[in-house]
């Protein structure tokens, strides 16, 4: 599973407005990644900040190259 399970958590967030609300207003990337990891842990996931950082870079690449 890419990014150590983060992709599965991403789908959970996309399906859950309350989770989205906890993340939408965080503009500082470090603070955002920390919160994503915390929320992931609370949902039983073990991905790390490095995994989320990799996912962020992949998203940026897909936008730039798309």
């Amino acid at each position, binding site marked *: 599973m890419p990014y150590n399970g983060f992709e599965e958590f*991403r789908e959970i*967030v*996309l*399906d859950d*407005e309350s989770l*989205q609300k906890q*993340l*939408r207003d*965080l*503009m*500082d*990337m470090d603070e*955002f*990644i920390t919160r*994503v990891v915390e929320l992931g842990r609370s949902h039983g996931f073990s991905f790390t900040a490095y995994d*989320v950082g990799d*996912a*962020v870079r992949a*998203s*940026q690449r*897909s*936008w730039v190259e*798309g």
Partner: protein
Amino acid sequence: MNKSIRNWIPIRVYPNGSGLAVDWCYAGETRFTQPFFRDSVQQILRSPFSLLFRRQTSIEVLHESASENETIPPTGFIFHMSRCGSTLVSQMLAALPSNIVISEAPPIDSVLKHVAGDLSVTTSLLRSLVNVLGQKRGKDEERFFIKFDSWNTLDLERIQTAFPDVPWIFLYREPIEVIVSQMQKRGSQMIQGSVERIIPGVHLQEALTMSAEEYCARTLASFCESALEHANDVNAMLVNYNELPEAALTSVLGHFRVSLDEDELRRMRTVAQFNAKTPQLVFEPDSESKQASATDAARDAAARWVDPLYEKLESMRLERKK
């Protein structure tokens, strides 16, 4: 999938397998205020959430989502031949929080490019896409304008079929000034082969043998021909660059059936003082310098391929003013 797309916008439409797919990002209430859609999206993607939590869906989700939220139907369309004040007009309109302005959005161009055959499919898809882009995300929004890419002037027929009641303008300029601008910094559409069939009847092999000036002039000619073909439509209005910025505050608004107060007009007028594509810079008129710097090759190409069409556009425009 039945996830709400309220305040999500489609930022990319792309071929995926046998169909099309859509890439969405969360935009919240962030307005499109940058000169081009792609720049506005880049601004939105500065939000970590919007960057990381994007949705990729089938094209069917676009249709399903089209009726989900309050949306504003299109108020007016802007077509143009490039380098002729279209960004100025769109930026003047975008100065008002009451206007949603989408400028040269790649998703729209993708739909027009990838759904070439069946007119009913194009119509349905365009309507769903425009519907979603016209979501009312800000409380003050009440109008919706779309500025198309210059080569979408060749799709006027299909766009009018999908939106038969939307007023539109075609912006144009003295061809030599556009060619000089394009030779200084070429737009992607002026590179041979980048936009398929941009010059009707000319295949890539022939295009590759043309000089840059000829290719540019013949591309501009194809835009003007398409505009002329539809210029008698009741929804059509021709606007010359030399009428700007005043026309954007008067006849264009009137054509779009928009009435604004003095404060709104003042805000639009303020935008016109700055370079539309680089708003940090003050606007400097450049028609004279472009005319003076034109090469013989550019003048010859303009004279042979575009000037006669420009004269026709002018003749029609001036006839209407009587």
